[in-house]
């Protein structure tokens, strides 16, 4: 529990813990099972370099409180962009209107439980002078232009978030968290004759901005990102039409783990399974993936973009095994769905902000590694695709159909990687594709920290990861 968070979110608004207990008790005077209050303040800044100049800078502040009342399967929710006793009282009476008066539940006395911090509670926006942030952007721009003097358009952006949250719930939970989050992105457009291609790369996590300058294999990390963006643009400049149809696909390690996020991740969120709406509903203990496939969701990884010390309901995050050696082990839960399904919450209750309801969401979702060297995996394929980099994806959790779009891909011919091919959408059915994973690499990696997951109109930062994987058959949406 951070005293500073308690001071900023409560004391500065004339509130104390006793007032929160009183507010929760006012909700329980109606026939409700659970209630919580979510106080949040956040600052967000971004800086953009384009055309070699610092073109834009922006700063955003947000502050408010969300009040939730649960009665059986019903939820009442109200929020205010003002933190005060009056606003809190008003939100409580709106939220409890979901249930009739005459409640008997008691509010447990609010108390802190110890949890492990997964990142440091520093403010990245204040930890570096604005002039230094500008100079970092200029350095990245200069590096790209030095590497590729013909680069037509270079855009480099830097953004940082500092967020303080406090959760108080009728089950006695009282938790605070300080959540820094930074991100650096660069994109470069190359032009050759009539042809133009873009490459981009980014990274981030719950760090200070100095993360981007740390030494990575003998050079600053931002140079590695710039190299990645240039590499993608150059590869795509040479790309030919992608093949179309069902064929073997090898996915690279790290960011292609977006496969797991779409093919199984969403389908294993507790709400969909409580409602029986997911293709994975009712399948705990059954085989849902090939032998050797173990998938976890882990919010405890130090400094990762998808990590949280406690989730947005005050539950400490965990290392949750979703699929073990191909067998479905469990779902990701928030308190509401866990209670209705008679299981424990798993630390996956997340919300975009105080103005949004929490739901079961992923944190960092990845697959554990296997035994094969990536080259060995490639060598087994006569004709197929190797895809080491992706853009976004999407899933229909009911039918299990999912897509994800490659941003960099190559043909595999006679066991060797050959010509680069244009980006294409890959489509499959989650449970079927997971059964078709036939080789798992020994090179597990997490993504560099750029993932954003959308669900019901709410965005939250997430991580993904996996080793190199061979999928025996996946439909590739090319034109050739």
């Amino acid at each position: 529990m951070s005293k500073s968070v308690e001071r900023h979110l409560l004391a500065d608004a004339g509130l104390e813990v006793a007032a929160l207990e009183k507010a929760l008790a006012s909700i329980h005077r109606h026939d409700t099972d659970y209630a919580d209050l979510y106080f949040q303040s956040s600052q967000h800044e971004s800086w953009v370099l384009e055309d070699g100049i610092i073109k834009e800078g922006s700063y955003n502040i947000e502050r408010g409180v969300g009040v939730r009342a649960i009665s059986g399967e019903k939820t009442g929710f109200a929020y205010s962009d003002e933190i005060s006793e009056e606003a809190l009282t008003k939100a409580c009476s709106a939220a409890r209107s979901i249930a009739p008066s005459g409640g008997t539940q008691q509010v447990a006395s609010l108390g802190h439980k110890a949890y492990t911090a997964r990142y440091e509670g520093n403010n990245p926006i204040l930890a570096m002078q604005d002039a230094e942030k500008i100079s970092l952007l200029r350095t990245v721009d200069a590096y790209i232009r030095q590497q590729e003097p013909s680069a037509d358009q270079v855009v480099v952006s830097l953004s940082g978030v500092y967020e303080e949250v406090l959760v108080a719930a009728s089950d006695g939970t009282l938790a605070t968290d300080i959540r820094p989050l930074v991100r650096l992105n660069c994109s470069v457009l190359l032009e050759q004759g009539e042809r133009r291609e873009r490459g981009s790369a980014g990274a981030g996590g719950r760090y200070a901005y100095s993360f981007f300058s740390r030494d990575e294999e003998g050079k600053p990390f931002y140079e590695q990102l710039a190299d990645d963006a240039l590499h993608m643009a150059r590869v795509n400049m040479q790309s030919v039409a992608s093949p179309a149809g069902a064929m073997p696909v090898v996915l690279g390690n790290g960011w292609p783990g977006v496969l797991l996020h779409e093919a199984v991740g969403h389908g294993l969120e507790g709400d969909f399974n409580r409602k029986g709406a997911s293709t994975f509903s009712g399948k705990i203990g059954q085989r849902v993936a090939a032998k050797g496939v173990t998938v976890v969701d882990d919010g405890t990884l130090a400094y990762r973009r998808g990590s949280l010390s406690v989730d947005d309901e005050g539950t400490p995050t965990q290392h949750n095994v979703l699929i073990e050696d191909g067998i479905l082990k469990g779902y990701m839960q928030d308190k509401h769905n866990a209670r209705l399904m008679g299981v424990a919450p798993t630390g996956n209750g997340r919300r975009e902000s105080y103005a949004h309801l929490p739901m079961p969401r992923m944190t960092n979702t990845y697959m554990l590694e296997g035994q094969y060297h990536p080259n060995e995996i490639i060598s087994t394929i006569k004709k197929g695709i190797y895809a080491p980099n992706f853009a976004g994806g999407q899933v229909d959790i009911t039918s299990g159909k999912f897509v994800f779009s490659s941003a960099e891909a190559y043909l595999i011919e006679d066991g060797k990687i050959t010509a680069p091919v244009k980006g294409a959408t890959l489509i499959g059915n989650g449970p079927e594709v997971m059964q078709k994973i036939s080789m798992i690499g020994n090179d597990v990696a997490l993504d560099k920290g750029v993932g954003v997951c959308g669900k019901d109109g709410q965005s939250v930062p997430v991580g993904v990861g996996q080793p190199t994987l061979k999928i025996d058959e996946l439909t590739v949406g090319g034109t050739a």
Partner: protein
Amino acid sequence: MQIDQQLVDIQNIVDDVLKLAQKKGATQAEASMSKVQGIAVSSRMQEVENVEFTNDGGLGISVYVGKRKGSASTADLSKVALTLAVEKAVDIARYTSEDPCTGLADADLMATEFPDLDLYHPQALDTEQAIKTAIEAETAAMEYDERITNSDGASYNANLGMRVYGNTHGINAGYPSSRYSLSCMVIGSQSDDMQRDYAYTVNRNAALLNSAKAVGEEAARATVERLGARKINTANVPIILHKDIASSLFGHYVGAISGGSLYRRSSFLLDSLGKQVFPEWLNIEERPFIKNGLASSSFDNEGVATQDMTIVDSGKLATYLYTTYSARKLNTQSNGHAGGIHNWLVGDTGHSDADLLKEMGTGLLVTELMGQGVNIVTGDYSRGAAGFWVENGQIQYPVHEVTIAGNLRDMFAGIAAIGSEQDQRGSVQTGSILIDKMKIAGS
């Protein structure tokens, strides 16, 4: 009128903020502010699921100190937060670079007339009534067919709000608006196959929404029709983008002709003004002043007056879409597209949806698109799709787990017909689109 008073209050805040910005050293400034109140109610299995009271608002300010720009925004509208936002914006302008193209839109482009566009149809935010409507839609869906076995629920949303824009040229204009919507999503099953689909209705006037029963039945019908879907073989065939999802194709056109994509040289339609992009019969008109229109507005996000415009003239690219900044980068003037487009009306070939199927003969009717596999720099297009296989103008069976791929340049030129039955629920009003040939990837 209470709403008029609220509007004046917000205009006063915008005015104060602009004055404060000038006092803090800004040579020019602009601010926009919105406030929206609403309810979002959902039902599931014909019981109330969530009742949310929404209350969103915020102020965004951009200041210009000479040719340097700084921006800030706040969702907290207390005096302290507003002052902090102004100070931060001015502070940021000390670090951004001189940019000759930056600054407010030219004063002579500012909107001076603010006709009533009939965008505000207030109705009490009644959660009981909203719950009743949602449950009615869901009930109609659940009772439609015995293969509807489960539900993802129905939701009813109502929002009443206002938007104000002001800048130091002197404009300070705003208007109230309302928006109501009802949607329903159900799940059907047949042996091992489980499918879901949805339907929705949206209008600024609640009285003009489709009935709850119609929405529920449409969701159920769409869901049942998908049961038993299969893959098809990889092939080159014509496709129809069903009107419910067809506007996305023109959404990609918006991206490609937007000034921001042009000055960044990130569009496959560079240097194409006046060139033939679509077939000769195709016209697109922009009409910002449609009464009760979902994308109607007499000024854009920079205060620039909107105007009736021809976007595509006999298939030719008649205009690009400029904001103030992108226009200056390209040595021209803004045409009022900061913040997006304003009601596009796409021409048609007079075909009913049934005629369109006959016109296609054999091919794929696409009713769902998945993923974001569209590259505006190159025009390359590859997206997941589901729909129906059509032979001799007749629907044969549902199809899923396929992709459609091509290049937007060819797809635009290859539009063979557009149906006269339109989807009017978005900023682009178009009928179903028949494209002569695309690559389908399946098994």
